[in-house]
């Protein structure tokens, strides 16, 4: 039985639009300017009181005005996570110069990653149920408690009706969603797919992270996010949404759109790891990278850049750095390594925002610095202090999650 809808694997999938609502700014101009200037969005949390907690820092989205992006009719029904998602999706469509109309709406879709969804709304609902009982819960909250609500709201506001899926797997949610979207473009199920990730800060979620001793603590030590640094003592949590617009190279050429870059391959993997613990062994990272490179049909010597997963956690950063030492120790390539989490915090589904950043880097041939890094744990080619001009042919976006899940994406320059 032949399968007519499937296309050859050689179909190139390219990034043609970027949209983001981040602690470093809304939209690619503001975001890019602050990112490459090495600005840090981490500050004392303002949206809720952290006095009772052991940590007080976070990277919060500020100066985001949903009304600039979303109709009043739909805006009223949306919670924070859906507002950020819908605004980012609109920005990505605009950046890609795609107008949704009745001719194309069934060929535009969204595949979104979120690690924890609307923790604020879910807790609000549970709170009423537990304190006042089933008769008092508010049915209006229910639709927003499901993790697929942000993608649903975005589709309603923007009017696209193609493939629509929400993926969750902790800290690799966005990377996994993007990989799925790449295959869907290749398979021809949609002409344009918006993909990326979103997560939000909420008080309950923040408190839970402090109880897991995951965050950089501020009581005895200096609270700070220090990816790959000797003095790192935990991560600082962030929030936000980053969405990229994918289409086939043929489609981009036909529309005379110059892509930011190609996503030439991805690899997925796992390693047995205790729940909620970062992996201590490098085997999962190495295996996943080799799968990603094989799919992109390149070797390790072809890799110039790694946008790392490191977030200032003692275990994660050590494992990731060790994996790169093992992989690149004997190779000619000494890829430049940067982590954006020192500036943006760890937002788990931040793979969407990081993909936007990497796409900008590919276009401008410049890498943002690893904010918060001054004494690297290993002698790798870390980008510190300030941005670096670098010709990028291939770059990797690292996705590593607690619980032992991995997703690596390979970004390739379209001009080379």
């Amino acid at each position, binding site marked *: 039985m*032949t*399968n007519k809808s499937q296309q050859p694997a050689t179909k190139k999938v390219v990034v043609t639009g970027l949209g983001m609502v981040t602690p470093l700014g809304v939209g690619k101009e503001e975001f890019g300017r602050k990112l490459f200037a090495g600005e840090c969005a981490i500050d004392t949390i303002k949206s809720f009181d952290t006095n009772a907690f052991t940590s007080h820092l976070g990277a919060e989205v500020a100066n985001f005005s949903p009304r600039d992006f979303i109709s009043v009719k739909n805006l009223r029904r949306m919670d924070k996570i859906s507002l950020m998602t819908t605004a980012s999706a609109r920005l990505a469509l605009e950046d890609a110069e795609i107008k949704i109309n009745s001719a194309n709406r069934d060929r535009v879709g969204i595949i979104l990653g979120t690690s924890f969804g609307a923790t604020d709304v879910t807790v609000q609902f*549970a709170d009423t149920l537990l304190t006042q009982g089933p008769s008092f*819960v508010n*049915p209006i909250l229910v639709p927003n408690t499901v993790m697929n609500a942000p993608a649903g709201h975005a589709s309603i506001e923007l009017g696209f009706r193609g493939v629509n899926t929400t993926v969750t*797997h902790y800290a690799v949610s966005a990377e996994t969603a993007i990989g799925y979207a790449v295959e869907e473009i290749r398979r021809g199920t949609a002409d344009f797919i918006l993909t990326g990730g979103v997560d939000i800060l909420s008080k309950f979620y923040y408190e839970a992270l402090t109880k897991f001793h995951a965050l950089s603590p501020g009581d005895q030590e200096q609270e700070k996010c220090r990816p790959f640094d000797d003095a790192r003592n935990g991560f600082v949590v962030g929030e936000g949404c980053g969405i990229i617009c994918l289409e086939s190279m043929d489609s981009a050429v036909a529309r005379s759109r110059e892509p930011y870059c190609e996503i030439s391959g991805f690899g997925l993997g796992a390693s047995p790891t205790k729940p909620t613990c970062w992996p201590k062994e490098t085997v999962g990272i190495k295996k996943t990278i080799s799968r990603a490179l094989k799919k992109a049909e390149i070797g390790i010597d072809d890799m110039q850049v790694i946008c790392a997963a490191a977030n200032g956690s003692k275990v994660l950063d050590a494992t990731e750095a060790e994996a790169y030492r093992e992989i690149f120790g004997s190779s000619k390539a000494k890829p430049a390594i940067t982590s954006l989490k020192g500036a943006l915090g760890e937002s788990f589904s931040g793979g969407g925002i990081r993909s936007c950043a990497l796409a900008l880097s590919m276009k401008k041939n410049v890498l943002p610095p690893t904010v918060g890094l001054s004494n690297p744990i290993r002698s790798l080619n870390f980008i510190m202090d300030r941005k670096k001009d670098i010709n990028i042919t291939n770059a990797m976006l690292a996705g590593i999650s607690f619980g*032992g899940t991995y997703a690596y994406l390979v970004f390739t320059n379209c001009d080379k």
Partner: protein
Amino acid sequence: MNKNKRIVITGLGTLNAVANNVQEFTRALREGVCGIKPIDLFDTKEFRSKNGGQIKNFIAHDYIPNDFSLKRMSRADQLSFAATLEALDDAGLYPLSNSLKEEMGIAIGGGSGGLWEAENFYSNLLKKGASCAHFSKLSSVYCASSADKIASGLRLTGPKTTFMTACSAGATAIGYARDLIVNGHASVMLAGGVEPMCRITYAAFNALKSVDPDVCRPFDKNREGLSLGEAAAIMVLEPLDAAVNRGAKIYGEILGYGVTCDSFHMTAPDEQASGAVRSMQAALKDSGLSIDNVDYINAHGTATPVNDIMETKAIKEVFGKRAYLIPVSSTKSMHAHTLGAAGALEAIVSLLALKNGFIPPTINYSQRDSQCDLDYVTGGSREAQLHTVLSNSFAFGGNNTTVIFGKYAGRDTEND
């Protein structure tokens, strides 16, 4: 990528309201057993409904050998782990060889995850304050926990992903898993869904008044809403040639799937049925089949007043006059609506129907609705040699997924 690579199902595992294994499930589906009964997992006094499809007599140790720690496993984790072991055993792959662990991945449709356990935690938090609450109880609250527990427990190192598109998640996970094998990201995939009974979810559907106070009556004139249920449903997917080479039992083949979005409303289905129509059409296109090939439809059939009219209309629009000739049943009348697991559980129903040659009935049906005028198999199950079964799953957020399964009749693989 071998674009014509055929993927078959060689193992099934399930626990649900009418059966604690696949053999019992086949019998229950044939006999039309109703598993919707009073719930005893929590107090239902204040709820509109008192009934649900609860799994009976589940003692985790009876299903999960001592080699695996049950510590920190939520009910959802335990149920899905038990179903996974049954599916692997059924496929003749358990215990797993080391080479298989390398190339095996997992994709699960999730729902409430560990929310039931989290509720106890949260209740303590509200009553006694943060210092007395055991935040470690949250380690399995998210639905991604089940795939983590299974992958780590079995030491799998292939892809690991969780889908959160509410009631279509289990179906999407199966389609995604097929593509991961087709595209060379894994050799064998576990795919399915899990949804535990949970008071918060129960409260949410009661607040929306979308539950029937008694038992759900799909397509019946007097239907008042759905019945909530719980289930784990896992299947083993592998390439046809690999299954044939090892002489495996083959339940059926995944011929195609389609995913679309209503872009209409967060909870209400589009009465024009456009999203459902397009998802069935997308699945037909993906499978390369015509409407004449489909000989049984396992409906979404939630028994809400709106869904059943909308779905009937959609089937008529896709199949034209042939709609009246195709048996359509909602097995939710037996096992209830299992949300995140529903698509996977009903995929198992479809495969058992194909393999064993029968059409499962819609039970609890007594009065005809003039707007629901198809053949709903209301007079008990029918013996029938089926070749192609279509299964629908529609969700909050406007997410629609349709999967099409085909009987594997021992055709040779030469013309692949």
